[in-house]
């Protein structure tokens, strides 16, 4: 493992086919590791382009009640980064070629050892990394390790980000750019922020990288509209909400959302 970066490959393909990207966030281990594994394995079939594997943290600052809840449930039984890596290794062995991006707060990564993390993540078969509480100004040595290991570091751009700063962020972001569609934390919202289209246009002028929109995306109609304005959408809390009902309902929801995003 570690030669092909599926994220690079997927993004090149999407560009060539002018296809929107549909990204699903899962809290690793919620409701259990078997469910996460099954969802990763069925994701490609369901039309998911990128998978964000959320690693639970005791203090998830950027997350709303849904993901907080899922994280708390997982941590009651404890979960290590090594467990998450083992899961990725398992799905790769079973032939999954879906791009998997690790989404986690910095402290668990820091405690694992940044250098070791970059090496082991790639080795396990992860393609990218999102650390919502690590701006590009901090942990420069770690960023270098990620580059060295070809672990793509994706940065977030927020509605409050100044144009000046956004230019730097999109330039440094690898793979794609994660646009946070609203001021606030993750969670299910209805409607579409008023300034979204304007902001996306501006961002698109700054970069060729795909710009994906996340935070608050929860319904097919809303996802379709956002996908038209952008290069794709990221859905997290809404998936977790369905997952509370069971893996089946979550899978059906994912399929529905994928169809909406891809316009089929």
């Amino acid at each position: 493992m570690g030669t092909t970066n599926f994220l690079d490959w997927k993004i090149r393909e999407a560009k060539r086919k002018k296809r929107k990207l549909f990204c699903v966030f899962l809290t690793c281990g919620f409701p259990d590791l078997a469910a996460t594994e099954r969802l990763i394995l069925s994701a490609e079939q369901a039309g998911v382009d990128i998978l964000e594997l959320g690693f639970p943290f005791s203090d998830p600052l950027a997350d709303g009640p849904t993901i907080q809840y899922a994280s708390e449930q997982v941590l009651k039984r404890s979960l290590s980064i090594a467990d998450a890596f083992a899961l990725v290794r398992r799905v790769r062995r079973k032939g999954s070629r879906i791009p998997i991006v690790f989404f986690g707060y910095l402290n668990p990564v820091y405690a694992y050892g940044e250098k070791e993390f970059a090496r082991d993540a790639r080795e396990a078969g992860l393609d990218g990394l999102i650390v919502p509480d690590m701006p590009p100004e901090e942990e420069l040595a770690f960023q270098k390790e990620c580059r060295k290991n070809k672990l793509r570091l994706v940065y977030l751009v927020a509605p409050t980000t100044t144009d000046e700063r956004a230019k730097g962020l999109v330039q440094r972001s690898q793979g794609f750019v994660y646009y946070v569609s609203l001021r606030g934390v993750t969670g299910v919202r209805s409607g579409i922020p008023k300034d979204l289209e304007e902001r996306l246009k501006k961002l698109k002028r700054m970069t060729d990288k795909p710009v994906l929109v996340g935070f608050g995306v929860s319904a097919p109609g809303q996802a379709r509209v956002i996908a038209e304005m952008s290069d794709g959408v990221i859905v997290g809390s809404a998936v977790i909400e369905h997952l509370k009902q069971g893996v089946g309902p979550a899978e059906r929801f994912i399929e529905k959302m994928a169809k909406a995003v891809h316009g089929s």
Partner: protein
Amino acid sequence: MKKQPDAAGHFGPYGGRYVPETLMKACAELTCAYQKLRKEKKFRQEVRHYLETYAGRPTALYEARNLADHFGRGRIFLKREDLLHTGAHKINNTLAQGLLAKRLGKTRIVAETGAGQHGVAAATAACVFGLKCVVYMGAVDIERQALNVYKMKLLGAEVRPVYSGSQTLKDATNEAIRDWVTHVEDTHYLLGSVVGPHPYPMMVRDFQSVIGKEARAQVLQAVKKLPEYLLACVGGGSNSMGFFFDFLKDRKVRMIGVEAAGEGVASGHHAVTMMKGKPGILHGMKSYLLQDPNGQVQLAHSISAGLDYPSVGPEHSYLRDSGRVRYESATDREALRAFELLTRCEGIMPALEPAHALAYLPRLMSKTKKTDVVVVCLSGRGDKDMATVQKHLKA
């Protein structure tokens, strides 16, 4: 010693700004505004005006002769922050940040609180400056500190219970930050300690440094020399940082920060961040942090809610590593004994937080010379702790 922090808020390897992108602009704006205001004469005068005419500064430096007699050697002085309006040093920071929020054009402040002391001080400042105030408080703490919750409500603040995580200060801080992320345009986050993302550790230190500035001048006047020792409690570390800061350049002044050892360091129920924690990232900063091997934050424990925090201000972490400040700890029991001792000797009931600093005196005074001068920061008064004390001590 190089001036700390650097332009990006780093104290050596600690501090920094580890926040979600949505908050980067607010942190940058706040830093910029604060850098301008700290140099502005009018702002400084305004802060001083409120500190002097409203909060009750300067606070006294009292020589505790009976207490020194009890130990049989050395001289002990108490910096009386307990005499301030609302009962603790917290008001130094909330008045200054309240003024700053107004200057920034914000109409609303949010604050986190554990014991409710910072919440009350924040709600008080909001009253004075006509700001809307929302205080986040863990549901567990709300139950433990009912009186302060009532006070905050009387002051017109909205107290929002936090049910996530451990339902204490750490989670209240998360929730206050989440609120700030959501209402960043009209809201100032009035953080209560020298923690959080840059510029908070620096800014709160500056606002609290009035403690050390006054104490230094007062002790020089009283004994015509600098003290041999400074002693203060450390939770997040705002009273100690404000107390130590002006003395850092005085190489001969030895400083001791006392953390809460709870039921004992070996029990696992403690808040001894410096000794038992490892560097980590929480609440937007890198600092010593109580955590498990997987990097999940562990709960702190102390009889005093104000010291019940799993991390510590990044400047303290820096001072620990450099050796400039020594960090020790005192247990719940030692703190209660110190509470009793000061009450009996001097007629002063300390809050349980500074009781931890006082609890180190028996160990320190056995080593001091007769002429040695020790200054203890008495950061707050004990009124709020009466129910807790009642449970443990016979009258």
